[in-house]
């Protein structure tokens, strides 16, 4: 058997049925084997999109996302996508072609040291030197990508290795890597201490992060919240961990979070941090804690995250789902603290602000209207910038809904390809890509993919002819600078029409309901362009 065929055999063994990619000279053997297989290959229009699509696919399917590119520029184009997945802990297996192994290091045509270049944002990487290692390497790659703290794993395969005859095609049944033994179960002593700390606290608060979603612990989190009565705030990546209509739900924290949620963190006497590194943007909006001490329980599958950004008294290394189950089993409802008063104190949400100027759509109102119109299983894929914040703040989470975004790296252009991946993973669910006019133009080429595969995605474009977030920052720090304007934007409707995608442009809130209904009913992809006031801010 050719090594390329063994690669495909290994992918099938890992239950891979869809891969995202873009071919080139040094990956042709793999593509030939792929063509003969039943695996669906989704051709993107630029390699970065392959990684984003695989990432959207992974987040919605719960499986490892797979993307394939050729050597050199194909591989380097993937880098931003790999880094995006790394920062958000998304499981990917990335396969790249490489020049002939005997020629590596001679600066051949389309040669790039991709394992070296991507080293700092891959969980692990392999440069395959012996074709007979491939079954083991692929087995390990999927294992490493999907266990512990998930992340992207890169396999770089020289073209001669792909073409070589392989002697042993048996795929190992198990993986044993002596340097990689992730902890999943929480330490029993720590579970006891955590439960005791909860019963002693007066103002406990949960901070849920993306780790809750990665470990599929939403159900356990809900049970935990209901059983303990503890209010919950979340990070951007933790959006969707608890339905926003739950009475214990307070809101999103951070620079762009709700002040109520940030104040809750400041006032709490016990923080239960689950599956988040509480990075700068999450911790940024929290008023200084001066008056009281706070105890911190930090649950994370990655021991390196514990104590990195926030100190903790009760560290718990393990999988969020497992640890929450352990805690639920141990908590006695009789030693539950009365959180009603604390909860009432925290519950005072700000109202929606209607657009003040005419001739524009208020993006907040648009997100709220959209929330009401969509099914309970809808998937929102937000880009980066103002649109991301509006989507995160005003889209209502319900059980079964998903919110995807590039939270860690903040990669503009993420939403279109990630939405494509999400739709392919779950064709029966509604998928909405929320994007600004800046991010839209960074991934315009993916209209080609969306159109070709007729992916029924609603593209909700907030067009303010600005890089809105940049404009906001410039205004705040440098006065009315407006250094970046996108005033000569193309006609996005016509542009989409050129890709055989229909769309409408609306300019007032009153058109929203009808427009959403039309978009939802439409068969095939649809662009809904909302003209937004260039001065619109994410802050109120």
């Amino acid at each position, binding site marked *: 058997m050719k090594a390329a065929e063994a690669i495909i055999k290994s992918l099938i063994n890992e239950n891979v049925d869809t891969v995202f990619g873009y071919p080139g000279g040094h990956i042709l053997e793999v593509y030939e084997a792929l063509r003969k297989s039943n695996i669906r290959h989704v051709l993107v229009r630029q390699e970065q999109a392959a990684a984003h699509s695989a990432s959207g696919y992974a987040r919605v399917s719960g499986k490892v996302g797979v993307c394939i590119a050729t050597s050199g520029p194909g591989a380097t184009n993937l880098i931003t996508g790999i880094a995006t997945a790394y920062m958000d802990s998304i499981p990917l297996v990335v396969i790249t072609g490489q020049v002939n192994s005997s020629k590596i290091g001679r600066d051949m045509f389309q040669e790039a040291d991709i394992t*070296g270049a991507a080293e700092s944002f891959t969980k692990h*990487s392999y440069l395959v030197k012996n074709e007979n290692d491939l079954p083991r390497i692929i087995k390990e790659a999927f294992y490493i990508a999907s266990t512990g703290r998930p992340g992207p794993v890169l396999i770089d395969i020289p073209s001669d290795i792909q073409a070589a005859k392989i002697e042993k095609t048996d795929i190992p049944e198990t993986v044993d890597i002596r340097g990689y033994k992730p902890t999943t179960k929480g330490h029993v002593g720590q579970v006891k201490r955590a439960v005791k700390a909860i019963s002693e606290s007066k103002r406990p608060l949960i901070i849920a992060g993306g780790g809750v979603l990665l470990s599929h612990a939403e159900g356990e989190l809900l049970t935990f919240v209901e059983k303990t009565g503890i209010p919950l705030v979340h990070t951007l990546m933790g959006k969707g961990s608890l339905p926003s209509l739950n009475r214990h739900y307070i809101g999103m924290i951070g620079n762009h979070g709700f002040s109520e949620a940030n104040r809750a963190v400041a006032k709490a006497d016990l923080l239960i941090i689950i599956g988040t590194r509480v990075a700068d943007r999450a911790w940024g909006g929290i008023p200084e804690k001066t008056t009281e001490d706070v105890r911190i329980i930090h649950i994370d599958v990655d*021991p390196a995250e514990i104590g990195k950004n926030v100190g903790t008294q009760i560290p718990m290394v393990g999988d969020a789902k497992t640890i929450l189950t352990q805690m639920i089993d141990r908590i006695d409802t009789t030693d539950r603290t009365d959180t009603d008063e604390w909860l009432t104190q925290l519950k005072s949400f700000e109202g929606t602000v209607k657009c003040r100027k005419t001739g524009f759509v208020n993006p907040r109102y648009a997100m709220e209207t959209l929330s009401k119109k969509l099914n309970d299983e809808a998937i929102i894929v937000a880009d980066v910038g103002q649109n991301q914040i509006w989507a995160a703040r005003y889209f209502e989470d319900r059980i079964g809904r998903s919110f995807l975004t590039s939270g860690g790296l903040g990669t503009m252009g993420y939403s279109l390809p990630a939405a494509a991946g999400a739709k392919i993973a779950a064709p029966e669910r509604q998928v909405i890509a929320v994007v600004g006019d800046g991010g839209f133009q960074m991934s315009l080429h993916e209209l080609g993919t969306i159109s070709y595969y007729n992916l029924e995605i609603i593209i909700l474009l907030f067009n303010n002819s600005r890089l809105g977030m940049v404009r906001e920052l410039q205004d705040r720090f440098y006065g009315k600078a407006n250094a970046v304007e996108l005033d000569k934007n193309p006609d996005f409707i016509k542009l989409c029409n050129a890709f055989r995608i229909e769309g409408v442009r609306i300019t007032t809130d009153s058109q929203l309901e009808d427009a959403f209904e039309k978009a939802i009913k439409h068969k095939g992809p649809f662009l809904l362009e909302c003209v937004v006031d260039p001065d619109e801010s994410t802050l109120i």
Partner: protein
Amino acid sequence: MNRHVLSVLVENQSGVLSRVSGLFSRRGYNIDSLSVGETEDPKVSRMTIVVSGDDYILEQIKKQLNKLIDVIKIVELDAEKSVFRELAMIKVNTTMETRASIIEIVSIFRANIVDVSNETLTVEMTGDESKIEAFINLMNNYGIAEVVRTGLTAIERGNKHIKNQIKGEEE
């Protein structure tokens, strides 16, 4: 900024050294020295890394190193319970007049002369860093042509064995 000596078992594969050194540079940690070589098990290499940093940095270094798939085990070596050694070779400028006195100092330090020429004398010595520093200081009086040092390597005293200590000790 305290100095710490870490003994790290890693898979004996290409790319491991770049992963480890890359980790230090991208996370802004300082490496004072790093030495590496094969162990009793040819599939395993052992690195001795000398780092400086406060407790927070040290903990982060250990945890981040542990995350590398190729890292098998990390142990911080306690100066009191370990033997630290470094090998240095020092090429000293000599003349007919100075040669004898240099040889005298070499014997005081229990170092070896590994090469002699008309104008130079090359000394090989092992010891902890302070011994090597002291010798280099003395040789400065004669004029040093070249110095090459391996960086610290270290092992625990007694029957303690790095293999018997588990990875991820800080959990």
